[in-house]
């Protein structure tokens, strides 16, 4: 999917150098790395929000041409003047797909992310941080994306809520099977969610290592207590420490 990818910003700061990786359709891949290693930049390149200075990036045409790329930010980034439903409807409006069946699509998407019917009319301000992130996920998923990009979406949430959202995200991915690229600095989150974990190094950003995650689906909460889970998390963390040093 990406080979020899490079990005140098106008100021001369090189954010990425010779990034190579491939993600298959329907795969869930996480990128872990220390802050400032360029993982968010990489995600924005994949989304088409930035253009590489060198190298090639092939994103399956269905994702780009049908606008079936979805992006989830670090913060929920909801429009405060819109209700939950109206926030989720936004991508459909922008793409001109706000037809008669939009309401049903929105309702099923809200259901998918675990939001109850009576939350739909609420203002984002009335929701907790975890609920807001669920709305943000629904907004991304409402177009039924084939390429699903998440930029440290659960970083600001407390641990229990993060774990619950991780479990739900695996279920959602299993049901819809979008090609998913998940950026995080939390190793156990990356291992829990993904089929593969890529480790990035800073200054300039490169992919330093790749781990395959062998655990079956679905992934129950108890997986986190499994010895094999602990071992793999330990290995990824050790690698991360090595490249960050």
């Amino acid at each position, binding site marked *: 999917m990406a080979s020899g990818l490079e990005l140098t910003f106008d100021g001369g700061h090189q954010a990425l150098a010779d990034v190579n990786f491939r993600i298959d359709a329907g795969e869930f891949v996480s990128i872990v790395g220390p802050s400032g290693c360029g993982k968010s930049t990489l995600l924005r390149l994949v*989304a088409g929000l930035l253009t590489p200075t060198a190298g090639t990036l092939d994103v399956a045409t269905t994702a780009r041409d049908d606008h079936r*790329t979805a992006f989830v*930010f670090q913060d929920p*980034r909801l429009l405060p*003047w819109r209700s939950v439903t109206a926030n989720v409807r936004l991508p459909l409006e*922008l793409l001109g797909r706000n037809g008669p069946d939009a309401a049903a699509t929105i309702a099923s998407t809200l259901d998918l992310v675990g939001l109850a019917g009576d939350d739909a009319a609420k203002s984002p301000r009335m929701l907790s941080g975890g609920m807001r992130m669920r709305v943000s996920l629904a907004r991304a998923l409402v177009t039924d994306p084939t390429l699903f990009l998440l930029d440290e979406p659960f970083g600001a949430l407390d641990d229990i809520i993060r774990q619950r959202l991780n479990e739900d995200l695996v279920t959602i991915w299993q049901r819809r099977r979008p090609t998913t690229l998940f950026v995080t600095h939390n190793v156990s989150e990356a291992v829990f969610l993904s089929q593969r974990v890529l480790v990035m190094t800073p200054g300039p950003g490169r992919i330093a290592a790749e781990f395959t995650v062998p655990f079956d689906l679905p992934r129950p909460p108890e997986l986190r207590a499994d010895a094999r889970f602990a071992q793999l998390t330990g290995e990824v963390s050790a690698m991360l420490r090595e490249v960050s040093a």
Partner: protein
Amino acid sequence: MTSPLRTLAQVALPPLLLLAIVLGIWQGLTVALEIEPYLLPGPLDVLQAGWSDAGLFLQAGLRTGTAAVGGFLASLVVGCLTACLFAQSVWIRRSCYPYAIFLQTVPIVAIAPLIVVWCGYGMQSVILVSFIVSLFPIITSATTGLLAADPDLLDLFHLYDAGRMTVLRKLRLPGAVPYIISGARTSSGLAVIGAIVGEFFTGYGSSGYGLGYLIMQSSTLLKTDRLFAAVFVSTLLGLAVFGAVSAIGAGILRRWYGSE
């Protein structure tokens, strides 16, 4: 939990108490020192002057208020449209902004005669002066608000191929509402001042008079008690317009953000 009545008392009582003390001292001094009423009338004289000419003041206040509201509404519309234009490109902003500042810095006293030459005496000229004086805060606050759109959200809109107008309509303008409201509050007070100043220079001809004219005339006739009353009514008018705009703004914000 404090009741709204109690909150109101806590907010309103201290300034009212201070006012009563100041008025008391004022009245006491004018009587004790036997100050001539044309130099400084006591509060009771002012009250009497205001009361005996109540009809006059009401009529003048209504006319000045109409002009001020007209000027304010014009500023609101023109200011927001200008800001939408400014938000479109940094080059438009760079080339036009100095002239917007010119609006703020030009002494209205200096161009008032020009306005009379162009627009004649009457309501239209008073509204125009009020408009010029109150325009700038709307332009700056609305422009700031339009440009304050979150970069992530701009990315989101680009991801779904939204055009410039859609971004303006669905992201920038709704996001600028709190900024515009805060600019409108500043601007509403200025609009009243603008209307009164406008009346100094243009008046309404033979068709009537406003507070500005009453102030000028009372001053010329050395009717200082009526002058004070006119100033007091002007202040009340300013407070009323400012209060109304603030209340409407607060109402809009409450609905806008669905806060409970």
